[in-house]
């Protein structure tokens, strides 16, 4: 895979090389906008993060994260009905504003929601994975699943030190294969013995190929970002 085209010099190889370099350069030049800038545009799925009301004595406020309309975007419903699990990976970060210098990441929290359609039961299973705690729920109707996917999450990670802060939230929605799902659960459950490579027996070749083909086949993936306005802790 790696650089093999370059190991034996010769005119045909040089032409291929020139073509590849041109393609790579073209791809780089084609980059016009940072991903985050248009993450929310052009997609019907929305991510919002807002602050809880300013009721704490020192002004500390917690973030409330909510995604909306995931199933309104037909891609994800189609993916679910094709039998592929959909993973929603949420991450909330606490950033400290520092005037005249790079902002500082002070803390982060993340959790996963994995949804899968079980065609024999015509039900949707939703796993919510918080660290080593896993919650499984099942929904029989799209209405109920849609409502459940629109749950808001209030994260109690308010900063305590004085300063200016804001929250940044990221939602990555992707398609999983069965082995991905299995491994995700093991990793999040802290099964490092398996996660550090022993499970590679039988998985690595197929998993990489599966993931690559899923991506190229047009199965969707989506990344949304949102952030709150700045608030001050006194």
């Amino acid at each position: 895979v790696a650089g093999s085209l370059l190991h034996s010099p010769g005119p045909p190889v040089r032409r291929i090389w020139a073509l590849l370099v041109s393609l790579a350069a073209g791809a780089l030049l084609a980059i016009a906008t940072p991903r985050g800038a248009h993450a929310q545009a052009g997609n019907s799925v929305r991510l919002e993060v807002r602050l809880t009301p300013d009721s704490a004595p020192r002004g500390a406020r917690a973030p409330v994260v909510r995604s909306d309309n995931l199933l309104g975007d037909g891609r994800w419903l189609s993916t679910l009905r094709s039998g592929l699990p959909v993973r929603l990976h949420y991450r909330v970060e606490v950033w400290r504003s520092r005037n005249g210098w790079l902002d500082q990441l002070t803390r982060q929290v993340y959790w996963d929601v994995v949804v899968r359609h079980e065609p024999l039961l015509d039900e949707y299973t939703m796993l919510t994975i918080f660290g080593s705690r896993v919650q499984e729920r099942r929904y029989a109707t799209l209405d109920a699943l849609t409502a459940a996917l629109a749950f808001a999450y209030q994260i109690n990670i308010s900063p305590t030190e004085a300063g200016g802060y804001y929250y940044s939230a990221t939602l990555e929605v992707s398609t999983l294969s069965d082995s991905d799902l299995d491994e995700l659960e093991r990793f999040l459950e802290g099964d490092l013995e398996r996660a550090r490579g022993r499970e590679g027996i039988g998985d690595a070749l197929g998993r990489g190929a599966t993931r690559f083909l899923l991506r190229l086949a047009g199965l969707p993936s989506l990344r949304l970002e949102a952030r709150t306005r700045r608030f001050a802790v006194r």
Partner: protein
Amino acid sequence: VRPLVGLLLLLALPPALRAQDSVIVIDPDAPAADSLERVGPPPEVVAELIEFYNDSTTTRVQGDVTFPTGSRFAGRLALHRGNLRIAGRVEGPIAVANGTLHLLAGADVRGDILVIGGRLIRAAGARHEGRQRVFWDAAPVALTDEGLLEIRERRRPIGDLAAARTSFQTGKVRTTLLLSTGGTYNRIEGLPILFGPTFDLRTGRRSAFKLDLRGILRTAGSNTRLADFGYQARGEFRFGRFGVAGEVYSELTPIEDHPLSPGEVGWSAFLLQRDYRDYFDRRGYGGLAWVQVTRPLRLELSRRRDDERTVRATDPWSLFRNSDRWRSNPPIDDGHYVTTGVRLDLDTRNERYLPSTGWLIQARFEHSSSGDVAPVLLPRLVRPAVPLGQRYAYDRIFFDVRRYSRITPSLRVNGRLRADGWVGGDRLPVQRRVSLGGPDLMPGYDFRAFTCAPSGFTDPALSALCDRVVSAQIEVRSRVGLNLGYRTRGRENQSRRFIGIEEADLVFFADAGKGWLAGDGPGQVPANRIPSFSEWKVDVGIGLDAGEIGAYIAKGVSEDESVKFLVRLRRRF
């Protein structure tokens, strides 16, 4: 950054309310608790639903049913699976199992409403007199042949529904049968096929026993020492944070774990007849004990006895260049080795494949000895002659420290420091020697550009001969929209599918490293010294990483190297 431990839902709300509550409160600082919680409607309410539905006086309907404006119904009404739309008048209780109840404008319902497994959608102008209970979670019910409801057995959790294996429970023992590839393709065994059962026995609340039996069927290599069949068997007992394991094995082992991952090596070998690893045959047995100190930290002590033997490359098929010759597999120092090792793993990454924050530290020390080593003859500059008939022993250390950081919401900086090699005793056997150069650690240089082979020493296998290597890597990543492909439209002109790669990480990177022979000879570095940074080789590069595939351009700047183009099927590190 605080590791993810102990995120908990606040469970103070009564269960009936939690199902519909639209705000979930997460307290990251709550005590950690391992659990799988299966949430569903209260059993007594499900029983009530079944009793209601099966009552002979109940009018039962299925699918989508509408009571139009002006209609009137009196009695007990139940629906299973579908949408019950009411715009008229209903006098009596209503139950809905795994469906949605719509009270449309003008609806007038006089009776209790029970919905399990769906929602109640009520329009303005709809009237309801009576108790209302709604549970979004699915009712675990199924329809019998007689059209009645019964409790349905809960299915396996979705994590168990893996396609390549099947599991079943017999008493206390859970058995999983696996059939899969060996995760790679190489010039020694072709495509290894793995198969066999795993038995899990939960012996107590905090203890479990596991027996893993694997047969390895090799599709190449029948004319070499390596048999067509290998095996791995491992028994493991866990008690809380502690565990012990014993294993026996006959398997093919790579000499170095770089410059590509097993999956990448497999694709490279299968497609291009380029196998970027070397291997030896390892048969033996061993035991280990470990403690999971905290969720991210694990310590392990192991001891094993291996019979390590040279294997020859065979000629498995490849898609391209099939008529080329494979690079030969180097001979190793055959013998029986007894190895005692200590290992530390610290993993605070937030993700395994695409981490953005956290540490990954792997370190191990091993002492190995042999009484019957049959050494390969190496140039004296590389290794003094190993005296035959005497005890041969060496110490080796390895560490790999990786740090993943987000310095702004859209910018990440990752770093890696890796070292491997001899630290004491006799000099390393061939199968423990190291090298640098290639896509993983030094992509700006050719594969095995630095093997420490003395000038004039010709070796078609390009064997790794260094005593020690050290490397450092740094990269800066920023997510960018790429849109390499095209977008299709669904039937209703709303489902837009992107064929190709929609976004990727733009990666700037630099790598530095040095491989050397320890000693006082020409070109060697004294055993008690690490080469100064000015002696290291450096490369720089840029690339696009779409997660499952990445393309990079790299150039070595310490020597007159040509620009290298690389394709990776995983993150650099």
